[in-house]
């Protein structure tokens, strides 16, 4: 995949088709959705939050290419240090690594410190904005109002 192809995929408007699975156990949250864009490309979006440490969360989006899930982005909470921010916890996103404008592997090793969100609710809002996702408010009626209800 080239950087231009990935940018087109990110920018392509996506709509939620259905919820694939969902569970809430105390503070722990696991919900997943299938999405589709105008080119019939399929996507999977997941929302995860630890019950023990609610600041440990991840909102991720994968695109289905050649019948396999290819991770596009992760918007993560403060779950500990990482290779690029090795001495402190921070909210951070994972992005693909590029070499000569082509994606290196399937991993998301490019880590960027994030200041646009501090909760899983805000991370989901950011994910929807940056990855052009529409229709999530059907599943989270208070999306963008910083007051989400996570019952599935």
């Amino acid at each position, binding site marked *: 995949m080239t950087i231009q192809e990935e940018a087109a995929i990110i920018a392509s408007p996506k709509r939620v088709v259905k919820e694939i699975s969902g569970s809430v156990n105390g503070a722990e949250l696991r919900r997943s959705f299938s999405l589709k864009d105008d080119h019939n490309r399929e996507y999977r979006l997941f929302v995860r939050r630890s019950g023990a440490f609610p600041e440990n969360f*991840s909102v991720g989006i994968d695109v289905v290419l050649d019948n396999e899930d290819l991770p596009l982005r992760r918007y993560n909470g403060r779950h*500990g240090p990482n290779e690029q921010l090795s001495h402190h916890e921070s909210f951070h996103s994972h992005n693909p690594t590029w070499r000569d404008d082509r994606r290196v592997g399937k991993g*998301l090793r490019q*880590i960027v410190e994030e200041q646009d969100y501090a909760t899983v609710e805000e991370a989901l809002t950011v994910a929807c904005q940056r990855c052009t996702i529409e229709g999530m408010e059907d599943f989270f009626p208070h999306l963008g109002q910083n007051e989400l209800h996570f019952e599935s």
Partner: protein
Amino acid sequence: MIDAIALLSGELNQRVSSFEKRPGVLQIVAPFYHDDGDMQEVFVTPGEFSNTWVLSDYGMTLLRLSYTFDNLSEGRDALIKKIASENGLDLVDGVLRVVSKRESLFFDFMAIQRAITQIMALKFQKSRRTTSSFYEDVRSELAVALAPWKPQFDYHPLHERDDLVIDIQISARRPIFICAAREDHRYLRAGLTCSQLIQHGLSFRSLILVEDEKAIALPNWRTVTNIVDKQYIGKDEILREVPIFVKREVA
């Protein structure tokens, strides 16, 4: 608990530290990473007796595995239990943990790190979403049907552009470039590849082989139809018509 961190750090070349995750819970900072660059999460809490500690992942490993699998199959669930057991760990309600003491702390710590790595490797078991063998079938059957014309596979028409790839090339007065497309994005890429080659001044005949036109978005279909010479749809038509087309062009 600082004793435990000091012990581990001594064993690991002073590369271990910690921070307080919650009162009475330290998260261990050590050079063990997931493949996305995040540090593997291991926590230490005081044990029941002096000089004992509990090492635990607080369920973070299986939560992270759920990024890949929404639900665990019975087989994978059994495998995770086996990994925990083989590494001498308890697995209770999705939490890996081990009670450790001074003499075994380093080995228990390495065991939980090893188990996390082994469990996360299960994500590579994720199977492809469908079992269509369109690409493999078209390639192998056309290799036989087009054998008299010595087809070249994965052909790069321009040396300086290794991103422009043709699935099958047949040499002729005007070479024949054949691309197969099952998904919409592969179809569009095939059309754009042909378009770019035309812009580079190449003269050729182009074929796109489509498994099912319903998988292709109409705007893309219209665009690509204006670029390529011929499209065949469905495996039967492809295997019947492509050799006829090639024979006529090469004659």
